[in-house]
């Protein structure tokens, strides 16, 4: 199983870089959707015994992160009529390179950690750290509200990956709670994006500092 998990996680890491390198927001959303769906398969692979709860976590993750959330975001994107992240703080190429450096650093760092023996061979920990860092790169360098939502989604993907380490100890309800929080958070943000756009005719988050009560 370890080799399948690793292959999956490597694809996830490559999708990160791909998401960092594209300027079309719709394509970034789709990439992260594919990433979420792939990560949704992880519980099935990591577990030794496939029980009903594992299947439920997996199905819920795929349905939410692979289908529902992207659908809401694409809907919001259509309403605000923007196509690309026009002026990110740093160029796309620089952010790809940053993302690659972050992933490499995560790999090297995770190699130094004293992990439990059953996790030492897999890439779960480095992939989780790399995803969180890449999510933060999104959050700090992109200014469109929807790109920031994508950033949160990538961070959550990292946390989800990390949760795979604890899946035997953690009850199902926690995982479900996290997914529900994420879903509601993004649902609300997408509505807010729509409102921001209607009020200011722009979804640039930098303008929000000028809000007055």
């Amino acid at each position, binding site marked *: 199983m370890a080799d399948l998990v690793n292959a999956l996680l490597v694809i996830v890491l*490559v999708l990160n870089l791909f998401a960092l390198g594209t300027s079309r927001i719709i394509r970034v959303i789709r990439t992260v959707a594919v990433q979420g769906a792939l990560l949704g398969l992880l519980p099935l692979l990591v577990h030794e015994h496939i029980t009903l709860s594992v299947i439920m976590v997996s199905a819920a993750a795929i349905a939410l992160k692979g289908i529902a959330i992207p659908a809401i975001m694409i809907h919001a994107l259509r309403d605000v009529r923007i196509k690309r992240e026009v002026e990110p703080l740093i160029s796309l190429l620089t952010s790809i390179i940053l993302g690659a450096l972050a992933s490499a650093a995560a790999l090297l760092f995770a190699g130094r950690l004293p992990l439990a023996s059953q996790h030492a061979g897999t890439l779960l920990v480095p992939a989780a750290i790399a995803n969180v860092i890449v999510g933060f790169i999104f959050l700090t360098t992109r200014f469109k509200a929807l790109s920031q939502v994508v950033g949160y989604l990538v961070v959550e993907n990292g946390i989800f990956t990390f949760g795979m380490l604890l899946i035997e100890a953690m009850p199902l309800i926690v995982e479900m709670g996290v997914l529900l929080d994420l879903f509601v958070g993004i649902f609300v943000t997408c509505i807010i994006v729509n409102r921001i756009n209607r009020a200011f005719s722009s979804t640039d988050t930098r303008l929000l500092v000028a809000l007055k009560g």
Partner: protein
Amino acid sequence: MTRILIQLALLLGMPPLLLGVINKTKAWFAGRVGPPLLQPYFDMLKLLRKGMVLSQTTTWVFRAGPVVTLASVGLAGLLIPIGRWAAPVAFAGDMILFAYLLGLARFFTTAAALDTGSAFEGMGAAREVTFSCLSEPALFFALLVLARLSGSTTLSEMLKGPAGGFPALATAPLVLIALGLFIVLLAESCRIPVDDPNTHLELTMIHEVMVLDHSGPLLGVILYSAALKLFILGAILLHVVAPFQTGAPWLDGGLFVLEMLGLAAVVGVVESVMARLALRQVPHLLIGAMISCGFGLLLLLR
């Protein structure tokens, strides 16, 4: 002896068929009938029978370009094991020779382009060299991963993998270098999304613009070496993505031919569903390939 003859026949005879399969796939996607599968062979034979126009400003470099290119790409092909058969030529460290034979071919193509003194061809040559700066490290990273996995620097053994198949630990690096190698394959053989082999707009093309002044047999040789390069890089990629073997040499040979045609069809699908990238975005793609292969190496070394 028969083994080497079959291998040579595959190496020299099959490449234009790949172009035919790619064109047929594209035509199928576009809802056309498309040219017959063997059209590239007809085109090349036609070109070989034609006369040649040589500009007066050109020197021997112009004529040597295609010939040296064909010779070095052909020689590089001899270093690659085709299917399950070992390569006809193999020695320790031949992966370096392989990479630089492709480099020599590129050098002579660009030198021939510069020799014409045309501004357009100079532009194409500059682009070709710039992009190869990025695709060559990717190729080297991929070869290093394979060398590390198999513990050998001979292409034949590297591509065959260690006895009993690749270890489970190797899956992740192999996925990464397969991805990188596929992008290198598209870039080196000038396919979409890096370059469009059908375009004839000098401002945007890369490879086609360098061969604008070549005609007749020389152009035929250039087309043939491009197809040969596609075949060779495809053979390397197939060793990474599809290391199946049945044991019976004939069955393996047939399997290889099928896999190769499948790869050509995949290239055709990629060309049909993607647009050519803007020139300034091509480096992003190639850097992506480089990062992907470098990552594979890092995973292995950590």
